[in-house]
């Protein structure tokens, strides 16, 4: 019995559907045409809650162009304020990440090279790290240039590592684990790291031990004779 009743109900619904569509069409046209103050629901037996009141009393009396202008003006103004706020937020956030004034003040170090005799090391502090400055003798420069670059672990010619051959400037941080190597020590007459036994030659290149890279060269320049600026 049950399947038959479901089928019959479906058939009845199908038959009713076009009729309802037609009625909906007619009511919508009637709504536009009629001057009645409320919308009459086409469905019988519905509560009063389904009645849509007339909002004509609340509608703007101003012409549509004025309303449109005002709406777009408000949208544009809010957009502009939002854009300014977003830009400001991002800008302040990025500014927060840049170097502060005290860091920038420490960023450059000036060294008087006349105080460093030939064949001597000087260690200065730059940005919290030691920097080795060596006034190399002609013999040491020759020794640094004699090395066969192809056999090195980190191949770099001595000319790539210095701006003036007599002045070797490099960061005094071992490229292995960051210890500070000892000057004028090691098997190659350069630097020796006591932590794990890395040997650097007179150009600061790694020759023996666990360190993977040559000692790092900071940015530096010679603004005038006898002056060195690191950073």
């Amino acid at each position, binding site marked *: 019995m049950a399947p038959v009743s479901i089928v019959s109900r479906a058939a009845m619904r199908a038959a009713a559907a076009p009729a309802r569509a037609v009625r909906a069409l007619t009511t919508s046209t009637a709504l536009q045409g009629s001057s009645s103050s409320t919308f009459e629901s086409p469905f019988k037996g519905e509560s009063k809650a389904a009645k849509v009141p007339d909002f004509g009393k609340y509608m703007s009396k101003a012409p549509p*162009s*004025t309303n*449109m*202008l005002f709406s*777009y*003006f408000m949208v*544009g*103004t809010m*957009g*502009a*304020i939002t*854009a*300014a706020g977003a*830009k*400001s937020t991002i800008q302040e956030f990025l500014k927060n990440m840049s170097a502060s004034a005290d860091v920038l003040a420490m960023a450059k170090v000036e060294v008087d090279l006349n105080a460093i005799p030939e064949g001597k090391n000087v260690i200065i502090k730059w940005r919290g790290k030691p920097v080795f400055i060596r006034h190399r003798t002609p013999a040491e420069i020759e020794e640094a240039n004699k090395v066969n670059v192809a056999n090195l672990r980190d191949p770099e010619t001595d000319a790539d590592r210095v701006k003036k051959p007599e002045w070797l400037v490099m960061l005094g941080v071992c490229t292995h684990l960051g210890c500070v190597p000892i000057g004028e020590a090691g098997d190659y007459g350069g630097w020796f790291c006591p932590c794990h036994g890395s040997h650097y030659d007179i150009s600061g290149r790694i020759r023996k031990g666990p360190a993977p890279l040559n000692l790092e060269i900071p940015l530096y320049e010679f603004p005038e004779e006898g002056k060195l600026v690191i950073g």
Partner: protein
Amino acid sequence: MSALYNLLFRNNTAFVGAVFAGAFAFELAYDNGMDKVWDKINKGRQWKDIRHKYVEAEE
């Protein structure tokens, strides 16, 4: 009125352009205005207000 509408709001490119231009102008005005307010509230307490008492001797 409708001239303004036709100029700024009808074309989306012009509208967005006007919004960004307005944002730029607004930001300038707002930042300067807020700086003025801050300076007014903290008048006499900032370094630029008391600098002349200390630096004059060195100059």
